[in-house]
């Protein structure tokens, strides 16, 4: 870990302006991802701006009948919120499928959205990795890629966004609210929040340097059956091989997003329209452009079969 300085911000705009003005400055929320990466010197911030005092830890109703979730609401608090459990069940289920109880107590809503990939080469600073060190190459493409992305990849990076919560947020059409260093606010639809790697895999998302997430908002509840199905190599405490977040209506229509397959929660609206025709019809469309490696090609069939299990489960 490189030595760094530390301060606690007092307002969102102040936090944003400090981070924007200091090269190498970063926000610190729960620290469950950032501190681990700092210990390995995968992240080497020179200054940390702790956002824990910003009072962004409330869940409120919006005028549109939805919910506004403060950026610092813990994963545990969000998953156990009564309204979330009742109206946005897919979100609760996705959160509790991730990490462990201890980590969820510490992890925040914004931090969770911003957790970095679990590509094993990203974690080993001896290895080339374009995401960690732009231009150094990608060790994973011809290496051990079983966990990595099958769709939306580039010849620079095939990492996944590993999280669960965001996959549920994607089917719920969430938006991310931010404050910019100049004090202006903006909203970013979750669909546009995480970036595909393209030629700049080092940029995971649409945020600018110093841009602070203040909240995530959910539109009014959409009813339906909420399911999150996460498949992994052991029963708990592991990242998804593939996950499916779905909200399904009795007539067989609904929404679906896949986790563990791309650098972002993978939802293809045109594919989801095929839900009444069944899992294969959806998966064929959602993964039409997939470019898997020999190691991870199974994920496409797994995504289809997991969706089939979800559809079956929704029928009750």
């Amino acid at each position, binding site marked *: *870990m*490189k*030595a760094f300085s530390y301060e606690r911000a007092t307002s969102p705009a102040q936090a944003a302006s400090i981070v924007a003005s200091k090269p190498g400055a970063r926000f610190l929320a729960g620290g469950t991802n950032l501190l681990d990466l700092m*210990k390995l*010197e995968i992240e080497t911030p020179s200054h940390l701006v702790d956002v824990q005092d910003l009072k962004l830890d409330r869940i409120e109703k919006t005028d549109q009948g939805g919910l506004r979730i403060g950026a610092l609401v813990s994963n545990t608090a969000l998953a156990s919120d009564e309204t979330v459990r009742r109206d946005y069940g897919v979100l609760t289920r996705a959160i509790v499928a991730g990490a462990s109880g201890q980590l969820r107590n510490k992890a925040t809503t914004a931090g969770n959205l911003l957790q970095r990939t*679990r590509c*094993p*080469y990203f*974690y*080993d600073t*001896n*290895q080339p990795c374009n995401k960690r060190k732009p231009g150094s190459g990608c*060790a994973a493409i*011809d*290496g*051990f890629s*079983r966990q990595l992305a099958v769709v939306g990849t580039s010849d620079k990076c095939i990492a996944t966004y590993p999280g669960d919560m965001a996959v549920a947020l994607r089917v719920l059409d969430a938006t991310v609210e931010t404050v910019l260093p100049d004090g202006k606010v903006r909203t970013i639809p979750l669909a546009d929040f995480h970036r595909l790697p393209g030629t700049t895999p080092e940029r995971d998302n649409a945020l600018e340097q110093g841009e602070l997430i203040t909240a995530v908002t959910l539109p009014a509840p959409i009813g339906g059956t909420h399911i999150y*199905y996460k*498949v992994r*190599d*052991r*029963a*708990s*405490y*592991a*990242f998804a*091989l593939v996950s499916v977040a779905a909200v399904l209506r009795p007539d067989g229509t609904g929404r679906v997003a896949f986790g563990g397959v791309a650098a972002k929660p993978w939802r293809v609206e045109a594919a989801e329209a095929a839900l009444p025709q069944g*899992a294969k019809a959806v998966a064929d469309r959602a993964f039409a452009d997939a470019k898997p490696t020999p190691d991870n090609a*199974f994920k496409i*069939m*797994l995504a289809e*079969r*997991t969706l*089939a*299990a979800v559809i*079956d489960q929704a029928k009750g």
Partner: protein
Amino acid sequence: MEFNAPAGENLFDKAKIVGKSTPRIDGPLKTTGKAPYAYERHDVVAGQVYGYIVGAAIAKGRIVSMDTAAARKAPGVVGVISTLDHAKPLPPGMQNNAPLFGGAQVAHYHQAIACVIAETFEQARSAAALILTRYDRAPGAFDLARAAPDAPLAKGDGGKPDRATLGDFDKAFAAAPVKIDARYHTPDESHAMMEPFATIAAWEGEKLTVWTSNQMIAWAKKSLGTILGIAAENVRVDSPYVGGGFGGKLFIRADAVVAALAAKAVGRPVKIAMQRPLMINNATHRHATIQRVRIGAEQDGRITAIAHENWSGNLGGEDGENGTLQTPKLYAGANRLTANYIATLDLPEGNAMRAPGEASGHLALEVAMDELAEALGMDPIELRIRNEPETVPATPEMRFSSRNLVRCLREGADKFGWSRRSAEPGKMREGNWLIGMGVAAGYRGGPTATSGARVRLTGDGGMVVETDMTDIGTGTYTIIAQTAAETMGLPLEKVRVTLGDSAFPASAGSGGQWGAASSTAGVYAACLNLRRAIGQKLGFNGEDATFENGRIRTGAKSFALADAGTLSAEGEMTFGKFKSDYEVGTYAGHFCEVAVNVYTGETRVRRMLAVCDAGRILNPLSARSQVIGAMVMSVGAALMEDLAVDKRFGFFVNHDLAGYEVPVHADIPHQDVIFLDTTDAIVSPLKAKGVGELGICGPGAAVANAVYNATGIRVREYPLTLDKYLDKLPRYS
């Protein structure tokens, strides 16, 4: 004292303490944090500083240059040592294939090349990242499957090529009316023990003390002497608590060597714990294997031909994983072949991991038996029983000391409800889950080795046992206390046990499932000497006296043990030649029920049972813990554990506990263990054998056979992750 004839009736046959379920005497210390592990021994020596090991960034080649200037100037740094400080590698200790430090050559990824020593751990780690090393990379061999076809036979007994035959396998196999021929792959595995390698090292003049975590104290002392070029007498090793080793801590590793060198360099005690990635690529692992099993049988199931060939690889082409070990012992058959090949690989070093050889071997042989049973249309338990041998199959002149495998299988089948299994696979279903049951036999040797101890009366009616024996989480403290209490006629709480210090008499140590049987016999020998010494002091014949309830009765006389004052005796048990006429083994029947999701292929283990035949069980409570722990590890081996090899860069990629998945609680269902009430008079006066490795020989195969029974899909490449059979699962509706 030599154990030179089968044990007759003795005090352990009427035991009041040995053989009874006894909570660990070290339990309260462990649960209250008062049993310090090596890295936590802050009080043993003042002025400790922290070392942080730097591992090589390449798998093979040479260090061209190393710039440590920035690291030396970093805050808090008190010194840096480099492998280039030594013109050539330090000599290897026992079972070190690659040097642990020294010289410019890199033999494997994350081999220790430097260590930064600083006032705090954080300072040491941060400065370590400032070291700039340039390498000249050399090509290496990292792919077992590619290297295997040209691999030579390994060195077997007495250095002879490791190949054994009986009768004419080829002819009998060709003639067999029913046969199977299958290849199995087991991956490289990590011990993944909780406590990392950790050492505090301090010098006083020429004398070195290491507070470390090690299974074999006498070996450690000797090896440190060899590696550091000092007299072994000048080395003291202390390891009273070990947070898991599983064979990884049988031999000296880089933590101890580098801590000793660093402490010398900076003139202060240095403590080092290996970071998790180094645990995997710097230290040792269980080697991958490729195994071919061919079995031919008559229609009635009698095996006529059996061949088991094994390929593994290692640095330097020595000390592989021999999956054939159980095959000469387990099933009858007049025509036999076993052969063990070893390729030279440049991956990190393979070495012993819990039941080396057999743990992997059962994953092949016991699935092959399942495949044969199916080819015969026979129940797999019946097939095994039909091939129960009279004497050791591959060496028919050798007798079994005691063997109750058939009972294990029969009683297990009964208890497990084996009759509810569908012989035809893929036929049992509950909702979206395919259900299957599997069985496997288990064999592991029951060896013993010389073991010594010192016992002391404290004068107040209590006693102390001192031996360099280790407790690696297995419960050794308790069985030693039970043995001493039983022999000296004391209640358990009057016995204090101190372990793991090389200043104490040398024991057999913990490894190869020999620890329990050997160390208790050594303590027994010491106690008999103490009884004689007490007799001498108080004027009676110690051999004839009865020691009971803290008192000694002899003829009409009676004494309190405290009357003997303080008195000390040493003793050692050696094991006589007569044993070599016998095959001393432990046996088990392993059973498993799994559910496989018909959509996703996820496997959930639902029930497990082990029925074990291991002689007298000294402490059923801790023995059960050993077996269920081994069953957990077997589930890991069968379903998820897999060190992923990068065949280009030559290292294990998933080198942390996020990437290397071991079972979590949610993976493990209720596990039952039954111990047969057997004794084995050939082993030791206590008639007891080990169980800690028996528990990992077979359950993985039972899991694999259950997955087959559930799905009808046979996967021969471990671990059985869903990607290997998803495309063969039934189409969902």
